[in-house]
Structures are given as structure tokens and as C-alpha cells.
């Protein structure tokens, strides 16, 4: 506590406009409470809990904010848990028979039906029912306690201060960033104290950033200039917009052009902008790859059924839809069997992926056996027939599941993103990229490394010759089509993690799929991979400049021009199968 007296000396108004006396009060309160805690080692947890209850039930936002501030020094870990739950919408309110209300959290352990006991926030004890036995609550029937953005912001601020001492470095990091943005000089001693203890390198970096950013608020150039330089060295993207406006303010003001602050801030802004441009480049590349992977996953099945087998399969999109709906059904089955959370729901997606392959392959099998095998020599009629099938499937699904979109949840490992050097890598996108690589590798191995693949290629190249050599061409056709359909089904399952699942899902992708296969060169899987990469990356490069609409138009126009020049696509495969 040696730094305590020095803070009060530094309490003079600086050039910062958003000087916040409320936050100063918070800080003083923290320090007082820390001191109090040190002096009298027994902070009464029950009083913190009852304050908590008052915050929750108070109708007045300013009173809530005041009470929240009082909670900051609490050493009771339960307070933080309750606040976090409240902010995240998992704090519930029970109406007692006597008219009073009890706020509670759900016990994480559930019974067979997914019901759980409600633990009162006052004493962590279950809420008793009329028969004195603990009441059971069903999570799906509960309504969370209300919050508004303002209140959540106040809760977050309280939690940020609490989180500076959190054992998890991620929480400490978020808290430091948030508090640093306030540029409040009174936080400096707090940051310094934390920086001395901090072991985690990432949090230390953020602390240094927060310290530097806060010091830029100092009126003393001897403090400000080094702080500005530090921000540049730290490549602080979060402070860029502040620095830009700061530089503009200095330039517009009466500052001489060789002012030290101005020079420092100019260099810092340049440094960070260069760093950000590099990040944008990596980000664009990643987004390009990810779009390419989505296109590839969607088009690979078509590359088999249309590319290899020569069937103009207009129902390809609807096969994807079947896969997506299979995911939805599997999700619902898992949910009803194992409850709305937990390990089964985290892993259901892998089961759904496999199921969608199996189900869609079965649909493809029926389609091939029922319709397509009669039309192998009449490609135009097969186009009409499969188009009919696509409409039929759409109507059937609309009838069974309703015209509105259905909700497919994402497991937590497919939500959120990885951040490396301020570049975002969304987990679901990473998954699609890996998945695309996996199925391309799998399909390639199947076609070139197995005897089934040999037979497939033989039949596709010359059906009559293969047949005379003893290959059962009918069976090979059937299985190839089923495999291609199964791939479409898995694509649908993947897309359920990115976009909408509705009866019109297939319609959104079918054009792109044909475009990719035709561009890549019919009958060439490597061509399909190259084409999706080309289209995906080009689209993402163009988008920031031209916008989503013009970007797409430009890509389509380029493809048309390209096909004028090379009508057979990127890679031409010579095959007799297409000649009938």
C-alpha cells in the first residue's frame, strides 16, 4: 500500500474530457475496502450477499449502480459467480408463496429429466417447496432476471475490477483492456501493482498497453511522449482510433509541427497501421480460404455426381438441405435424450455429421435407383427430373418442418474465435477448412488408392469397356451417386453451423456449386479444389473494396469471361463418358 498517498497527489484534472468522477470513487472504494479487508480479516459474506439481492430487486438503475460499486471489495467468490450469471442471463427469480422473491442459480447437477435445484443467492441453499423438499426447476421453462445494457455495463465494470485478481488470465486480460480504454489516471497505481505481480505474458503485455494508454492522458509531456512511443512498440490496435483522433487534434491545434508529442504519435499511428495492414492481409487470406472451403465442401458432391458421372443433378442443393435437417433432427433427439446441455450436446455434431452422410446417401441411392438410372443416356431429361425432385423435396420438408427456418445450435467448441496477433480465426471456419481438406483427401484416396475407386474411374471413362471386363457398372453407378449425395449431406451439416437451415437452403448454394464444378473443369476433382480457392480468395479480396454486391458481380463476370476463353474450365479431362 506504499503507493496510496501518491495517488491523491496525482488527482489533478488532466486534459482528458471523459474524466469520470464515478470511477474515481470506485477506485477509492476498492482501495478502502482492500485496506479494510487487510485490517479486519473477516468481511461478512452474508452482508455482501444481501447487498447483491438488493441490487437484483432494485427498480432504480442508479441505486443498482451504487450498490454494485459497494460489492467490488468482496472476497466472497459467490458474488462474482452471481454477477456473471446475471449478466449472462442465467440468474432466475422465484416467487415465494408469501409474495417475496428469491433470486437463484440452477444447480449444475440435474436429474434424469433435466430438472435441477434452485440455489438461493443468499446462502447457496436449495429453495424449499411447500413440503420442505427442495424445489426442482426445468431450465427451459425459466425466465432469466432482467437486465439492460446500462446495467450490464455497470455489472461488467464491477466484474472488471474484481477480475483483475481472477486466476484465469483471459479474464484479467479483458478487464485490463476495458479499464485501459477509460484512460483514467487514477487507475495507474492499480495497474502498476498488478503489473508487478502478473506472470502471464499476454496479460503483462495488455497491462503495459493499458499503462501507456492511461499515461497519454497525463498533462506532462515527459510522461506522455514515452507512453505514446510505447504504444507504437506494443502495436496497440485497440488504442489506434484514440491515437488517430489525438494526432488530428494536435495537428488542428496550435501545436508546432516539430512538437515531440506530435512526432511520437505520428510514428506510433504509422507503426500500428502497418501492423494492422499485415493483419488484414492474413485475415483476408484466412477468410478467403474459409469461403473456399465452404464452396468446396458444397461442390465436392456435385463434382462426383455431375463432374464424374455426368448427371446434371439439380437436386444437389436439396440433398444438402436433407443433410442440414438431419443435423437438426439429431440435435433435437440428443437434446430430448440428454437434456439441454452437457457433453452429449457438445459432441452431437460429430454424430450428426455421420448421420447426415448416411441419411443423404440413402436418399441419393433411392433417387438413383428410382429415377436417374433410367435416364443415363438422356442428360436433359435427367436435368428436368432432378429439378422436379428438388421441388418435391422442398415441399415435403416445408410440410414436415414448416416454412420457417429451424434453429441448429452450435456446440461451444464451434463458437467463438482464436485471436493471434489481433487477427480473428473463427473456430467454425477453422473446422470447415479442416473438414474440406479431410473430405478432399478422403475422396481422392478413394478414387485413386482403392479397387472401388479403380472401378469407378473405369466406368466413368468407358462404361461399355468396363462392363465387358466384368465390372458391375449398375452397382458402381449406384454407389458413386450415393457417395456424392452423402458428401452433399455432410456439406449441409457443415452449413448448418454457418448459415440458415430452411427449405430453401439448397437454392442458395446450387448456382455456386455448378459454377465451381464447371469452372474447375468437369470431371476433375483437383479442378474443383482450385476453382473454389480461386473464387473464395478473389471474392474476399474484392469485398472490402467493392462491397458484397459488386464483389460478387465482379467474380461472376470474371468467370463468364474466363469460360469464354476456356470453355472447358481450368482443367480439361478427356473422357468418353460424356459422349454417351
Amino acid at each position, binding site marked *: 500500500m506504499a503507493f496510496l498517498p501518491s495517488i491523491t497527489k496525482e488527482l489533478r484534472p488532466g486534459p482528458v474530457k471523459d474524466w469520470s468522477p464515478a470511477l474515481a470513487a470506485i477506485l477509492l472504494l476498492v482501495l478502502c475496502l482492500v485496506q479494510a479487508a487487510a485490517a479486519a480479516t473477516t468481511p461478512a459474506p452474508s452482508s455482501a450477499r444481501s447487498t447483491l439481492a438488493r441490487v437484483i430487486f432494485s427498480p432504480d438503475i442508479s441505486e443498482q449502480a451504487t450498490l454494485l460499486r459497494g460489492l467490488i471489495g468482496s472476497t466472497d467468490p459467490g458474488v462474482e459467480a452471481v454477477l456473471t450469471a446475471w449478466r449472462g442471463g442465467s440468474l432466475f427469480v422465484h416467487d415465494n408463496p408469501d409474495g417475496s422473491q428469491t433470486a437463484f442459480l440452477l444447480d449444475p447437477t440435474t436429474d434424469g429429466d433435466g430438472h435441477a435445484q434452485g440455489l438461493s443467492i443468499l446462502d447457496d441453499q436449495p429453495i424449499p417447496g411447500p413440503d420442505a423438499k427442495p424445489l426442482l426447476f426445468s431450465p427451459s421453462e425459466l425466465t432469466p432476471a432482467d437486465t439492460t445494457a446500462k446495467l450490464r455495463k455497470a455489472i461488467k465494470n464491477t466484474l472488471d475490477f474484481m477480475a483483475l485478481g481472477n486466476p484465469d488470465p483471459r479474464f484479467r486480460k479483458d478487464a485490463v483492456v476495458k479499464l485501459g480504454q477509460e484512460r483514467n489516471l487514477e487507475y495507474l497505481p492499480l495497474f502498476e501493482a498488478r503489473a508487478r505481480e502478473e506472470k502471464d505474458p499476454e496479460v503483462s503485455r495488455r497491462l503495459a498497453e493499458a499503462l501507456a494508454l492511461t499515461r497519454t492522458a497525463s498533462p506532462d509531456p515527459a510522461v506522455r511522449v514515452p507512453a505514446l512511443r510505447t504504444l507504437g512498440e506494443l502495436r496497440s490496435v485497440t488504442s489506434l*482510433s484514440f491515437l488517430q483522433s489525438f494526432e488530428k487534434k494536435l495537428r488542428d491545434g496550435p501545436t508546432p509541427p516539430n512538437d515531440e508529442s506530435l512526432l511520437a504519435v505520428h510514428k506510433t499511428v504509422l507503426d500500428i497501421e502497418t501492423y494492422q495492414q499485415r493483419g488484414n492481409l492474413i485475415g483476408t487470406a484466412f477468410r478467403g480460404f474459409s469461403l473456399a472451403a465452404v464452396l468446396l465442401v458444397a461442390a465436392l458432391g456435385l463434382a462426383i455426381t455431375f463432374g464424374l458421372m455426368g448427371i446434371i443433378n439439380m437436386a444437389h442443393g436439396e440433398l444438402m438441405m436433407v443433410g442440414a435437417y438431419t443435423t437438426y433432427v439429431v440435435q433435437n433427439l440428443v437434446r430430448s435424450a440428454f437434456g439441454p446441455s452437457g457433453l452429449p450436446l457438445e459432441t452431437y455434431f460429430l454424430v450428426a455429421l455421420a448421420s447426415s452422410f448416411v441419411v443423404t446417401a440413402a436418399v441419393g441411392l433411392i433417387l438413383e435407383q428410382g429415377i436417374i438410372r433410367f435416364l443415363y443416356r438422356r442428360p436433359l431429361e435427367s436435368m428436368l427430373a432432378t429439378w422436379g425432385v428438388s421441388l418435391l423435396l422442398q415441399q415435403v420438408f416445408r410440410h414436415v418442418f414448416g416454412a*420457417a427456418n429451424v434453429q441448429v*445450435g*452450435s456446440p461451444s467448441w464451434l463458437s467463438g474465435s482464436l485471436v493471434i496477433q489481433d487477427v480473428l480465426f473463427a473456430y*467454425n471456419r477453422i473446422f470447415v477448412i479442416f473438414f474440406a481438406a479431410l473430405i478432399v483427401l478422403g475422396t481422392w484416396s478413394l478414387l485413386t488408392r482403392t479397387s472401388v475407386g479403380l472401378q469407378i474411374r473405369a466406368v466413368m471413362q468407358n462404361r461399355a469397356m468396363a462392363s465387358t471386363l466384368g465390372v458391375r457398372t449398375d452397382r458402381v453407378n449406384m454407389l458413386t451417386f450415393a457417395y456424392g449425395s452423402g458428401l452433399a449431406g455432410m456439406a449441409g451439416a457443415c452449413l448448418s453451423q454457418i448459415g440458415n437451415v430452411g427449405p430453401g437452403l439448397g437454392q442458395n448454394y446450387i448456382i455456386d456449386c455448378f459454377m465451381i464444378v464447371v469452372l474447375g473443369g468437369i470431371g476433375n476433382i483437383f479442378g474443383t479444389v482450385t476453382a473454389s480457392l480461386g473464387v473464395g480468395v478473389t471474392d474476399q479480396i474484392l469485398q472490402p473494396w467493392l*462491397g458484397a454486391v459488386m464483389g460478387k458481380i465482379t467474380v461472376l463476370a470474371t468467370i463468364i469471361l474466363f469460360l469464354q476463353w476456356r470453355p472447358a474450365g481450368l482443367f480439361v479431362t478427356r473422357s468418353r463418358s460424356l459422349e454417351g
Partner: protein
Amino acid sequence: MPHPFPSQIPVESYSTHPMKPTLFQKASLLIAALTAAVSLQAETVKVGVLHSLSGTMAISETSLKDVLLYSFDEVNKAGGVLVSGKHYLIEPVVVDPASNWPLFAEKAEELLVKDKVAVVFGCWTSVSRKSVLPVFERNNGLLFYPVQYEGEELSKNIFYTAEAVNQQAIPAVDYMLGEGKKKFYLLGSDYVYPRTTNKILKQYLKSKGIPDSDIIEIYTPFGHTDYQTIVAEIKTFTAGGSATVISTLNGDTNVPFFKEFANAGLTSENCPVVSFSISEDEFRGLPAKALVGHLGCWTYFMSIKTPENKAFVDSFMGWLKAPKVTGVDYNVSGVDPKGRVTCSPMNLSRIGVHLWKQAVEKAGTFDVDKVRDALVGQKFKGPTGVVTMQANHHLVNNVFIGETLATGQFKIIKTLNGVAGEPFSEKFLTTK
């Protein structure tokens, strides 16, 4: 592409209209009149409903058809429309323009010329309204339009119960400015409503001192699923924490957008999104979790706590279970009572019906020119308070800003009373 629901009520089935009865019908009417009590005899008036019941817009517009039939039932139960001492019961003529813009014009023509309806309630998208506008002007028909729109239009044959830009977009932006937001990311679907609204908003923001560099305007096509670049851009844009997204994204493109938004670690706390096209009804098809805390701005929310609103919601929910239009031979079909909500376009549809009824009673005739004159100044006490029809064919209405809850409802955080709808932006942009 065929449509999921065939046109539910073939218009031809309305040949049994008492105004032009066949000889046989005359005879049966006479017999009916002799056998039954005379008081059961009531005149009817044909009223058109022009909402898509199939195609892409069906999800939104079917709810409006439902609420219109409910309102007709409400009027009929109370004795119908009273014109010079005679009670006229509303007889609905429902047609399905199937989300097909040229078909809207054809169906409108059919309603006005063949069925000779006294008034039409309908249209959702601006393009459908633009498509029927010449038909109504040519035939001197009367249309009530209930969905928030971009303004810059005023037809003597259309009454806009909908929110004009200064009753939705401007109050929302004002609220954000009040919250200390300094950077605005205008994101919309690529068609007339978002483009016009954003054009107005840009001018408005500039007049409030927001520099061009702090306003980004972006459009995506319908059915767009790849929001990576846009969300990455928003993430950079909001790094300092003072940015907000003003979204006019339509329909299900909101799902991939909000999924991507949440995945990038953006929340309503560091970058709130105000959506103009998401009401309680649209919410039914969106992932609730991803939208919690983001904002909406309408002249009605289902969560509004007034006795009038409670009565409206309760009686509408009851009606959905046994839908009928009292007093006329009309079979209501295609109503799904499961998981239903009320929303602003639905409330405004109903208000339109009541305003029209009052105006007809005041004018003492169904004649369009006289009803139009009587409509101006007409007041109705709706679920959110009293609304007044102005001479510019727009309402004076209360405006609410609400925050989305996980239940799909809105928590009202700001109320503006008596905002007068103004279709032309130059009027509210110049008046400071």
C-alpha cells in the same frame, strides 16, 4: 417455382354477393328472410386483403392476413360498419399475390375492378407497394399500408399507418447519439428501403456533426451468408468502443450475420446493433441468444403494459384458436395458433381497419373520395395510446425503443410520445 400454399380462397367463390344476386339466390334469400327473423339480415361490404400467403414473404405477411381477419371479426361482432342507419358486415376477399411483385398489381386490379372492394389492406415490401400504387390511383381505390418504410412517397389513394423514417430510424439514431456513440456502421440488404433510409440517415448524422469517415454504409444481397469480411470490418471499426451498427438487414440474412458477430466476440455491450426489420414476429425464426441486448425501434411492442394491449393480445390469441369472421359466410383457413406473437405491423394493420371503419361512419358512405376526407383527423385509442391520422396520410404515434430479451420480447428502454409521421426527409432534415 410453385408455392407452398395454393391461393387459399379462390376469388370466384364470392359470386354469392347479395348486391348482384342471381334469381335462384334471390329466391333462397326470400325464403330465408321469411323463415328466419328479419333482424338476421344484414348488408355486407367487401374488403380486400392483399398479402402474400406463399413465397418468400409468406412468413411475415401471413400474420398480417390473420390479424386483419381478426379485426374484421372484431368490427362485425360489434355490429359492423354503421352507414346511414344500416349495419354493414365486413366480408373479406383474400387474395394471394405470392410474393410476386407484378402479381400484386394484377391482384389489386382484380380486387378493385372485379370484386369492387371498398378498401384494401395489404403489401409488405416497398416494391410491392410501388407496384400496386398506379393501380390504386387509376381506379381510385383505397389502400392501407402497415409496414415501416422509407418515405419519399405520398399517394392520395394510400394511407400509411406504417412508421415513417422519422418515427423509427431517426429516433433510434438519436438514442445512440445520446448513448455517446460516435461511429455508425449502416448495414442493409440491397434494395430500396435500406438504401433510401441510409441515405437519409447519413444526411441526418452529418447534420449532427458526425464526419463522413465515421459513417460506413454497406449492402449485402438477399440470402447472403458470408459475413466474415463485414464483421471483421466492424470489429476494427469498433476497437475504440464507440461504434454502433444500424441494421436494415432483412429476413434470414440476420442469422449468419449475428452468428458471425457473436463469434468475433462482439456483444451488445461493446457494439450494439439496432435492427429496423426485426420485430417479435421475425424473432420466431432467429437464434434468440445471439440477439440478446441488441435494440429495436417500433411504434408498438407486444410487451407494452397497457390494459388495451393486454386486451388486444389476449383476444387475438383466443381468436387464433377458433378463427372466424362473425356474421359472414367466410371460412378462415391456414391459421397456426402455435407460438404466435403480436408485432408492430400487426398492430398497425388492425389500427388501419378501425380508422377506416370510423371514417366510413363519419362520411356516411363507402365512397372513396368522401372516406379519404373523413380519414384525416380520425383518432383511435390503440394498445399504445391514441393515434391520429394526419393530412399527409401518416399517423401521429408513440415511438418506443426496446432491448431484445432472450424470450423474443423487447424491454422498453425509451418512449417518445406523439411523433408525427413525415414521409419527406427534406422536411425533418431541415427543421432543426
